């Protein structure tokens, strides 16, 4: 058992939204806490810290991942994209624009996770129906219950 009094640090290099960060971190740090508390990329939210709500969904090497379940040290040299890296300058990603237009949120807290999940879904094998989208988006809880508009926003982007 490690000595609880020792201060262990681990080196890690992460590429986040195209920028490289070489950091010395507490090996207990999750990707989520690293993004939020160290890099101050607070667009990614913590809702449960147990992979149960999806609020912290980000992309790691192009696939959606719950950042709260990922230890940062396990992602050395991985390509990470967060909500802050989705728009191109002032131009919103079509999914962001669709969420805005369809009112696919209320409080906005789960929204980053919903959008990152939805963008990843575009490259996943997903049937054409609303029910298919609902199933693949059910790892992202929206307690405000804006599900109908979330599905409408995703289907609009898929149809365009």
């Amino acid at each position: 058992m490690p000595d609880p009094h020792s201060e262990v640090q681990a080196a890690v290099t992460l590429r986040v939204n195209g920028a490289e960060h070489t950091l010395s971190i507490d090996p207990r740090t999750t990707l989520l806490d690293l993004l939020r508390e160290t890099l101050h990329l607070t667009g990614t939210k913590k809702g449960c810290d147990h992979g149960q709500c999806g609020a912290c969904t980000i992309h790691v090497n192009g696939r959606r991942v719950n950042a709260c379940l990922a230890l940062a040290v396990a992602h050395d040299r991985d390509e990470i994209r967060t909500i802050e890296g989705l728009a191109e300058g002032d131009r919103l990603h079509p999914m962001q624009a669709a969420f805005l237009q369809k009112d696919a949120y209320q409080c906005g807290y789960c929204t980053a996770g919903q959008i990152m999940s939805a963008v990843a879904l575009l490259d996943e094998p997903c049937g054409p129906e609303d029910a298919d989208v609902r199933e693949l988006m059910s790892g992202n809880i929206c307690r405000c219950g804006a599900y109908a508009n979330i599905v409408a926003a995703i289907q609009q982007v898929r149809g365009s």
Partner: protein
Amino acid sequence: MSATAEAPPMRIIGHPQPRIEGRLKVTGAAHYAADHHLPGMLYAVPVGATIAKGTIAAIDARVAEQMPGVRAVLRRGSFPALAAAKPDFASVADLEGTVYVDERRPPFDDDTVRYYGQYVALAVADTLEQAKAAADAVRVTYRAEAPEVDPALTAGEMTVKSERGDPDAAFAAAPVTVDQRYGMATETHNPIELHATIAAWEGDSLTVHEATQGVVNHRNVLAAMFGIPREKVQVISRYLGSGFGGKLFPWTHSPLAAAASRQLGRPVKLVLSRPMMFHAVGQRPAITQRIRLGAERDGRLTSLRHDYVNATSLLDDYEENCGEATPHMYATPNLRVASGLAKRSIGTPTSMRGPGAVPGLYALESAMDELAIALDMDPVALRLKNEPPLDQGLGLPFSSRHFQECLTLGAERFGWARRDRRIGSMARDGLTLGWGMAACSWLAERFPCSARVELRADGTARVAAAVQDIGTGTYTIMAQMVAEALAIPLSRVEVALGDTSLPAGPVSGGSMMSASLVAPIQAAITRAGEALVALAAGNPAAPFAGAKAGALRFAEGRVAAAEGNRQAVPFDQLLRALGQEAVSGLGRAEGTFPPKEKPTHSKHSFGAHFVEVTWQPELARLRVSRVVSVIDAGRILNPLAARNQIEGSIVMGVGMALFEETDYDPRSGAPVNASLADYVVATNADAPAMEVHFIEYPDTHLNALGARGVGEIGLAGTAAAIMNAVYHATGIRVRDLPVKLEQLLG
């Protein structure tokens, strides 16, 4: 542009408007409480009691205190005791002076543990990882006692809340009766945003970023607990990851974070974990209700009794006001509503979306369905039969009630006429269908509120109030009100809210925010217009040189001479001509809630839900497949956001009927399913197809725009409609929420 040309018709209020803060939300740039970072900030993690009743024998923090980065392990005696804020619910009617908490005991006030998870210590460290590890390393020993966890709720005494006629005699004489009990499990709010506090002292001033639905009340409670003037406390909540009532009033983690910050001289960030969201931040308590209905054979109600008992904590008397809608919902000459409390070893309950009326209407509307069956009568027809001419509970006319239209329109849109009343008789694609319906109602009141509106020379306007946008769309509605009144595009209005440095506003609760904002914003615009007119009058630089103030009029953002045909001048043009940057006005309006004097009208919204469920007995698979809701909530200010509110409530109603239940271990008193994996809320795949209709009769008794509020009414009645549909599909009447599949397997 010719000033004589007709201004284009403004399509702002009453038209769908995407949220003005939407861009910040979809880009991750909206900063919620826990997203703030302050220089030198420390991280705090609470240690919760692992017993539900007893006393703390010892707290051993020696290991924790020696761990890397740990600054302190605070406990009782570590800092000067906090004062108990003297909570007074009536004070929420006091705009600047509201002081209310549900859990009145300050944290660390004594060594007695009264519920599982009560904070007994607080680890503070340089990083979150260090603070978590330290909190885990704190060893607490207890003298445990047997907790009060009996799920059977009985009250020592019942308090009569509303009474008329002789309900007992009428019930005894009624040819058709229903007498049933309805139970509801504890529900936990579970907004996805965790409760969070960032507290920082500068000298004797405290700034707090808080996940709260009420910045002014939160400020006043903290000031009272720390014994400092309110002016020394600033509370900020610009974006809130929703609350559903759970963030209406302060909980003990907030003063703990502030006390730690004061003690250590550094900003402190405290974010609860998801399990802690089940402990010390409120819940809708377990409730048992008994409904007794007596009716004539033609369906006329002759007696209605509604008795309810809710669980509350050992120290606080939280009453779930289940009878709120009962006295006015239906006509009956004889009625009694009575309530009681059952003390349990649980955290103090609090308001959860539609407190009172939501559980109350679950029971009443289930019983009405049972009465319709006993009468062999259509449940829509039964409700139409019992339309009251006035609110018989208050003896007052309704400000605006169009419940019957909700019933008939809903029935038409749903296709209710095709319903075969026989149990399990309807099917589609091999699935048994169940069709059920229920009514809903929610109060319509206003809190006192103030607001400032500034008109600027660049053609923009700013509206500011210390209110909150909890996801309901307050930012956008404030902008709509100003844009429409000034006849400028929505994009030219800046909105500031969620900060106690702004003009005082009320809590975001009771679906009252929009209604509360109408009058103060209008008054603020009027005051700003008066200021502009005063500047313009007699100013030789102005287009109205020589005019007297009384001869000038301000309307729709323009100043015009009351007489003559001089052109009206837009405010920005006039300000530039005057060489002024801006003018502003402060508006204020009193509320109607809690009432200070007897009202002239009963003000409520109404509605009806029609629900289809599908049932596959071979798989024991129950789904809510389709919902049609018709809502009578006055004028709808932003149909896009309003529809979203009703749909979101229906989704929450699916959870209430089918999933949501906080389970307390009968031995330890711990909520054992304290996670989002084990406390199930509706996911995207659980959401039914929804059709929402608003019948818009502006209710100007409440405000000039005729809006009543839509945040909660959609949840009322939804679970009853679902369970009535479940009965229609299965023939099994489940009277305890949430329904469990084993109950349906008979």
